[in-house]
């Protein structure tokens, strides 16, 4: 349902992505991994339609994403927002309610369906105990969950995440990962997540796409993809460290 | 709604053109500010009223009258005014001098009120603001306002929009001051009285001219203010011309509209006479003589530092003759002027007042 077709992205003469092709099926969840600067975030932005590739194209539901207008894209594809400073005080429920923006009529505002979706998202993600709190006062982990709830409220069949567990402590990382897996398995939301933690990626995602220097060097189940050779070559670390975390991959292959 | 485009952002060449226009305008303004020394005014100044007034012995037949004010606006006054508002100090003095003081229902705030009876007239305006509501409420049928931004042009426009005849005056020189007196006389229906006042002033001009003919013109520094830098006459200042008529050679700032004078210029000019227009604010000749570096000035050495009543010298109203005589005597103390009143009040300043009296 989301597909990158021979995407090349060049910025100021430098190729960030070279001839990348990636297909995401309905209900699939994929982790994009690779060393820093490999082009993972760039690929994600191209998939989200906010970055126009120099060559190649991205298809959303079989339609070139460049031909769709932003509202249309937002109804079918949610990108979990990066943690950012809020200029004004905002209650948690108001942050989550922003996820309904693509569905809102510009003039008529929120409808009962929107409010219901917001409430459902809050419950689904489990941040109901944070209701009424100023989003700026939450811990990083709590705020990440709130942003996740925002994307859930958006109600799109595909969700993209860029390093959602950065700055989180281990417990919250695991919580977030479990939630994502749950969203995928129970609600059928397709996921593409850029992750820097190979162990978490390998444990929670049945499909890994490894990117190095702008190219996809591996695409498949963690057990198959994470060979010793690849780990050494791409990540420059001893494979033993990674093996520990990736002993059992959760979820469908 | 998708088709809505912002119309407010000019594109392409419009923007540089607008910027160029602004730049040219600013440069033009800079250029026009350059000084042009005012021509010396000869003693025989004749006033020619710039009005098309129907001269007639009885005031009733003179209305309705249409006159052209100092801004070139044609103002029609339908009937002899009964409720007059004077928005400049000179206008207040003039209307009272024309014998119509009891018809003045509002005036501008004045820190050197003259005549004393004018103090009872309510203030409807002050520096930079005019209370249009009060003027309307008083049933005003004539307003005499000050041009050159003395009264806010907005307020003048408002009054006219509300149908109140408003005559704008501003006198840049002696002929202008005399013309304004005639203009005001016509506006209130007292042209003969105005002509009489003009005659008095002209008499003083002729008298002073005759008395100072052939005399050397001493260099005069007319001090307006010295609290924070030195302020003296600009070339286009009314007082500058007065000094010239009174037989003096005035120091000016060199630039029209600029009143600040650098101390070095004063020292270089080396005034022979220093007149203290700010004497009303407590500045004394002793203070001036004690200023560091000023002891080299001729005026200080000769003790020629004299206080003067700034109001009568620079207010273009009916007391100009008195002011001119006082000024001439201050510059040439040995002058004999038959018309000058013997009272020393002519040259001494009035009681100190709290704030500056702007005196167009």
């Amino acid at each position: 349902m989301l597909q990158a077709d021979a995407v090349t992205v060049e910025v100021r003469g430098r190729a960030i992505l070279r001839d990348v092709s990636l297909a995401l099926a309905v209900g699939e969840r994929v982790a994009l991994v690779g060393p820093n600067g490999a082009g993972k975030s760039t690929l994600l932005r191209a998939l989200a339609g906010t970055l126009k590739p120099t060559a190649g194209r991205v298809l959303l539901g079989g339609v070139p994403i460049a031909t769709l207008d932003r509202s249309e894209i937002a109804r079918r594809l949610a990108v979990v927002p990066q943690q950012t400073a809020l200029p004004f005080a905002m209650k948690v429920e108001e942050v989550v309610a922003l996820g309904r923006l693509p569905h809102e009529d510009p003039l008529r505002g929120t409808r009962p369906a929107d409010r219901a979706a917001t409430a459902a998202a809050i419950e689904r993600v489990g941040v109901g105990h944070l209701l009424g709190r100023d989003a700026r006062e939450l811990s990083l982990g709590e705020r990440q969950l709130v942003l996740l709830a925002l994307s859930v409220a958006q109600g799109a069949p595909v969700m993209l995440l860029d390093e959602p567990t950065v700055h989180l402590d281990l417990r919250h990382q695991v919580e977030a990962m479990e939630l994502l897996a749950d969203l995928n398995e129970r609600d059928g939301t397709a996921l593409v997540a850029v992750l820097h933690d190979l162990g978490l990626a390998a444990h929670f995602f049945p499909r890994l796409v490894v990117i190095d220097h702008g190219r996809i060097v591996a695409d498949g189940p963690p057990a198959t993809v994470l060979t010793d050779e690849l780990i050494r070559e791409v990540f420059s670390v001893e494979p033993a460290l990674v093996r520990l975390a990736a002993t059992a991959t959760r979820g469908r292959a | 709604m998708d088709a809505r485009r912002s119309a407010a952002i000019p594109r392409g060449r419009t923007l540089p053109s607008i910027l160029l226009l602004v730049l040219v305008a600013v440069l033009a303004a800079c250029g026009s500010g350059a000084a042009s020394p005012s021509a010396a005014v000869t003693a025989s100044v004749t006033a020619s009223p710039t009005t098309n007034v129907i001269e007639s012995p009885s005031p009733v037949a003179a209305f309705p009258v249409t006159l052209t004010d100092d801004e070139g606006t044609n103002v029609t006054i339908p009937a002899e005014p009964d409720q007059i508002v004077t928005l400049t100090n000179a206008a207040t003095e003039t209307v009272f001098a024309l014998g119509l003081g009891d018809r003045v229902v509002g005036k501008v705030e004045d820190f050197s009120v003259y005549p004393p009876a004018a103090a009872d007239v309510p203030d409807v305006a002050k520096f930079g603001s005019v209370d249009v509501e009060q003027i309307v409420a008083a049933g005003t049928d004539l307003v005499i306002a000050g041009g050159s931004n003395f009264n806010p042009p907005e307020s003048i426009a408002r009054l006219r929009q509300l149908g109140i005849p408003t005559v704008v005056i501003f006198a840049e020189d002696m002929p202008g001051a005399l013309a304004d007196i005639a203009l005001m006389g016509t506006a209130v229906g007292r042209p003969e009285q105005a002509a009489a006042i003009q005659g008095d002033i002209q008499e003083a001009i002729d008298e002073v001219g005759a008395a100072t003919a052939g005399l050397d013109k001493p260099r005069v520094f007319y001090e307006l203010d010295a609290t924070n830098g030195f302020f003296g006459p600009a070339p286009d200042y009314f007082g500058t011309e007065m000094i010239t008529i009174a037989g003096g050679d005035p120091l000016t700032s060199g630039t029209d509209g600029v009143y600040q004078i650098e101390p070095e210029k004063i020292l270089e000019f080396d005034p022979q006479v220093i007149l203290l227009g700010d004497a009303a604010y407590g500045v004394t000749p002793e203070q001036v003589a004690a200023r560091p570096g000023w002891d080299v000035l001729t005026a200080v050495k000769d003790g020629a530092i004299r206080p003067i009543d700034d109001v009568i010298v620079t207010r273009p109203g009916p007391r100009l003759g008195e002011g001119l005589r006082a000024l001439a005597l201050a510059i040439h103390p040995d002058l004999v002027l038959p018309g000058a009143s013997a009272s020393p009040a002519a040259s001494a300043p009035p009681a100190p007042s709290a704030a500056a009296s702007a005196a167009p």
Partner: protein
Amino acid sequence: MATTPHPARAPGRLAVRLRVGRLGRAGSLALAGVVTLLVVLVGGIVLGTVDLAPATTVAILAKRLAGLDLGIAWAPTAEAIVMDLRLPRVLTAMVVGTGLAVAGCTFQGLLRNPLADPYVLGTASGAALGAAVAVLIPVRTVFLEFGLLHTLAFIGALVSVTVVYRLSRTGPLSPMTSLLLTGYAVGSLLAAGLAMAMYLSGTGLRQIFSYLLGGFDGASWLRLAVAAPLILGGTIAILMRARSLNGFLLGEEAAAHLGVDVRRERAILLALASLVTAAGVAVAGLIGFVGLVIPHLVRLLVGPNARLVLPLSALFGASLLAAADVAARMLGGVPVGVVTAVIGAPFFLLLLRHARSGYEL
């Protein structure tokens, strides 16, 4: 925790709680706003340096606006004062107050900066310089009761915003940061130009100065007829784009992901807010405080949702400025900008201390 709903709250009840909480407060605030507006309107007509009996005022209004004869006689000067001086003045102050508050809210939302006000992109400096240039030029023209000063102030405001916008497009910084910083730089340059113009202006200095301080002395029906469509039209257009403004709350990138056409909406909102500000500034000079604080006051009470903040800011901005103008008149011609600051600042501080809603600045 992530997989089962919290036992105490079912989604349905939660949804209801969400709804009642917001609308209740916003609704009562809107009501308060309308009432305040009416009170200020009446006050602005009844009060002034000339004493008019309230009954007379009501009678005049009834006759002129509704054709009713209330059997009270009045002098023609009273009618002129009410209909030609006070009424257009109060309405002009309201219109300008609306525009400034809405423009301030828009800039704050777009630039994601709580310290932004309508003048942040150089509009004030541009308008002031335009006005100063007009005073220097020895030409007197009047068009629709607007003099050269107002026209050049309007043009100056728009030109400076355009210059800032264009200059900020190039460069490595994020668009909004670039916009903010360029606005500061251009504003400083224009302020220098203004200082020079003021130095050269001679007697015109008074006029420039009184323009800078802002005021409604020149308010008239014709001016209102020209300015109101611009300001109110722009305001309504902004109100209709509240959804986009909400999108910007989490940043431009998040806005794009939420379906906002960032480039287009940013340009349109900036243009509308600048137009409204320029028109307000051309009519009333530079009046500060309204555009900065009213949106914050409203947010303290109803949160940052632009769908609520924009219209409520419009209401309260109108009331504040009209009230300030009445006070300025009664105090003998004090500049309006001084009054808005003196009324608004302590009130704002008080509210900050006692905010009970959990919102902070």
